[in-house]
């Protein structure tokens, strides 16, 4: 049985009207932003299922943009996030669509162009009570819930990388909660998603970057 805290019952503090369609949408936007390494330049946002039906009445669209801008779920600026996005040079568009079977009814897919001109596709769902999960980055299936500090690496797929990364984390006494590796092709570029119990600071990230198979590391704070 799940054990609740008083603050699960009286909380979260959030901008309404719906924990799944508004607060969850903010968190999905925040995660997409973190994966893109900051506020993107362009966002084309596909809304699936219930999201495509009622997004305006729940402010799901404003919430997703608010998240991309880095707002928290209780930030009243969310109501004006479109205007703020315009000011910050984020151009966006929403497309209600059907992604097909097998997607949660509250699914969103972001096609982003990051500040560094990287093209990304990020898919995630709001699964109830403000909880979310990122299910795909580009074509890679992942599972990222955003409630723990997370590292996403891009690295050359050669033997020993995983143990070297976990070795660095162990050195700093960082406990790994979940870890997942995926790649498109053998011996090409691969990715690792590492969720940790403790915060990962920049010294640790620098040490991981020093490992020569590592191309890049993105650190994602809990949202």
């Amino acid at each position: 049985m799940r054990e609740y805290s008083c603050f699960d019952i009286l909380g979260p503090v959030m901008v309404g009207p719906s924990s799944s369609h508004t607060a969850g949408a903010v968190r999905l936007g925040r995660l997409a932003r973190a994966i893109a390494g900051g506020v993107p330049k362009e966002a084309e946002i596909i809304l699936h299922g219930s999201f495509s039906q009622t997004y305006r009445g729940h402010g799901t669209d404003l919430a997703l943009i608010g998240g991309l801008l880095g707002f928290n779920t209780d930030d009243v600026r969310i109501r004006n996030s479109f205007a703020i996005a315009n000011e910050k040079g984020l151009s966006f568009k929403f497309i209600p669509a059907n992604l097909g079977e097998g997607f949660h009814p509250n699914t969103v897919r972001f096609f982003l162009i990051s500040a560094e001109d990287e093209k990304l596709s990020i898919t995630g769902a709001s699964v109830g009570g403000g909880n979310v999960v990122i299910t795909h980055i580009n074509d890679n299936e992942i599972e990222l819930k955003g409630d723990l500090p997370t590292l996403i690496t891009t690295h050359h797929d050669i033997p020993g990388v995983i143990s070297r990364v976990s070795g660095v984390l162990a050195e700093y006494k960082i406990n790994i909660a979940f870890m997942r590796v995926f790649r498109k092709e053998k011996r090409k570029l691969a990715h690792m998603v590492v969720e940790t119990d403790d915060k990962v600071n920049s010294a640790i990230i620098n040490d991981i970057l020093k490992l020569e198979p590592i191309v890049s590391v993105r650190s994602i704070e809990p949202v």
Partner: protein
Amino acid sequence: MHYYNVKDLVEEAEKRAVTIGRVVKEMEAENLEVPVEQVEERMLAQWLTMKESAEIGLSEPKKSMGGLIGGEGKKLNDYRLNNKTLAGQRMNKAVSRALAVAEVNASMGKIVAAPTAGSSGILPGVLLTVQEELNLDDRRIVDGLFTASGIGIIIAQKASISGAEGGCQAECGAAAAMAAAALVELAGGLPSQAGEACAIALKNVLGLICDPVAGLVEVPCAKRNALGASLALVSADMGLAGIKSVIPVDEVIVAMGEVGCSLPDSLRETAKGGLAATPTGRELAERFLGKF
């Protein structure tokens, strides 16, 4: 430590001659491994946000995102200020605030989910009112919020606090039951009376479906918050009068969960039954969805 029954919570409180709120607060601090003052501070912050949403809702009423509601809290408040009213000043004060917070939620304002965003008006509505009427300081209200959340935890564990799972009985119903228990303790009643009030409130919402028109948290949600507040106040008075629920509170909670499970899908947040499926409900949904 955890309590899985209201009965255990009530017995512990009565054995120690303290409130349920106090037992819950200490349990929370123990579970989070932090000092009691820290959880009190955190709850105080939730309370200040609740107050703020009620004030904003009454002073700056806004149309909801879907445009179906807005301004009703202020309307009732103005009416009560200018009339004797039938249900009385206290009652209408609480109800107008519950409406106001529900409207703030529906217009993308800041609220505290209590236990959900859809049912966020009930606790602030009644607690703000007893705070003023009984002259209670914020610290006392914070204790009441711990009482409410302790009851809410048990409802979440034994039944549900989600409309999609258990219908509106699990949202506005749970909120009214939580509020009733808190009100009894704030008025100086016994923990056992708080348990009875909780049972009485919850019994009255058994079978309450979740049927949001056009899938929006507007109709009937805001008015269910309003009447949830009135239910909490009357149930609390019954508890304070020493009236008992023949069916014990923990059995009522389990019954609520079972009723929720046997509700068809169409009556659990899918907007396919109940008020959402009435001719007007359908027309509003079409107009709303067609508008875009």
